[in-house]
């Protein structure tokens, strides 16, 4: 079951390639003018995040990431971009630039806060990491399915009702008005 940890060098290589690809593609996604280009960069980002899930022994989640995010959700987004007439965002100067600068400042502060919280978490959880070892076959479809249909059965059924409501709501919203 150990996919990436046969050799630590291999694990590092997979992590570095996938994380640098994810960061690069997400930055490209944010900065592209054309929404279609953004969507395609986001698909590459989702694939590289799926690779990182694999290296964390979460096989089921990695496959679900590729199928749900890179497959279904991005296909829906690309369809809607093609339905809606493309308007290329112009570079607006003046009124918006002040708000953007303030927004970037707030976001950098947010990143520093998250980083500080993570450092504190690592300090407090160091003994947890050494105490427990990862069980064999933790992230396989069998073990995740056992948890979903056993311990988490009620939330699972509620999630299916949520999906049903989503489908019905999308159909009700998108149909043509009769009046």
């Amino acid at each position, binding site marked *: 079951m150990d996919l990436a940890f046969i050799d630590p060098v291999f694990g590092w290589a997979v992590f570095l390639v996938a994380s640098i690809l994810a960061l690069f593609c997400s930055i490209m996604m944010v900065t592209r003018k054309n929404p279609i280009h953004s969507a395609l960069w986001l698909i590459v980002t989702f694939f590289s995040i799926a690779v990182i899930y694999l290296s964390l022994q979460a096989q089921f989640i990695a496959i679900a990431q590729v199928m749900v995010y890179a497959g279904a959700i991005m296909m829906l987004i690309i369809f809607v971009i093609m339905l*809606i007439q493309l308007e290329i965002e112009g570079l607006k100067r003046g009124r918006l630039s002040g708000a953007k600068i303030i927004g970037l400042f707030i976001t950098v502060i947010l990143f520093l806060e*998250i980083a500080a919280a993570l450092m504190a978490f690592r300090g407090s959880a160091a003994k947890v990491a050494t105490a427990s070892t990862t069980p064999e076959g*933790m992230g396989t479809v069998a073990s995740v399915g056992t948890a979903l249909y056993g311990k988490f059965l009620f939330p699972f059924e509620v999630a299916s009702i949520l999906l049903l409501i989503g489908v019905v709501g999308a159909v009700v919203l998108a149909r043509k008005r009769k009046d």
Partner: protein
Amino acid sequence: MLQAVPHSLYFALSAALFTIGAIGVITRRNAIIVFMCIELMLNGANLAFIAAGNMIGSIDGMVFVFFIMTVAAAEAAIGLAIFVLIFRLKGTINVDEINLLRG
């Protein structure tokens, strides 16, 4: 001898993805790109859940990510239907010009 990748690097990556998504949400004005940036932020949070679950040897992180994916799928269906409606009504999906709850 090289050690395995520490979990703090995974957390740092998830924080970076979340921050890039937040920058996109704040600076972009096209509603669909804002929506894609929100998906990227959700992925950053998912990565933190998976890394923490791997760190403490628990499966609960994966179950939580599964439910986040479910909510994201429902959100995508409803949100994109609303974008199509807004575009039919107003002819634009620039978030600065969408300021009315009814047309």
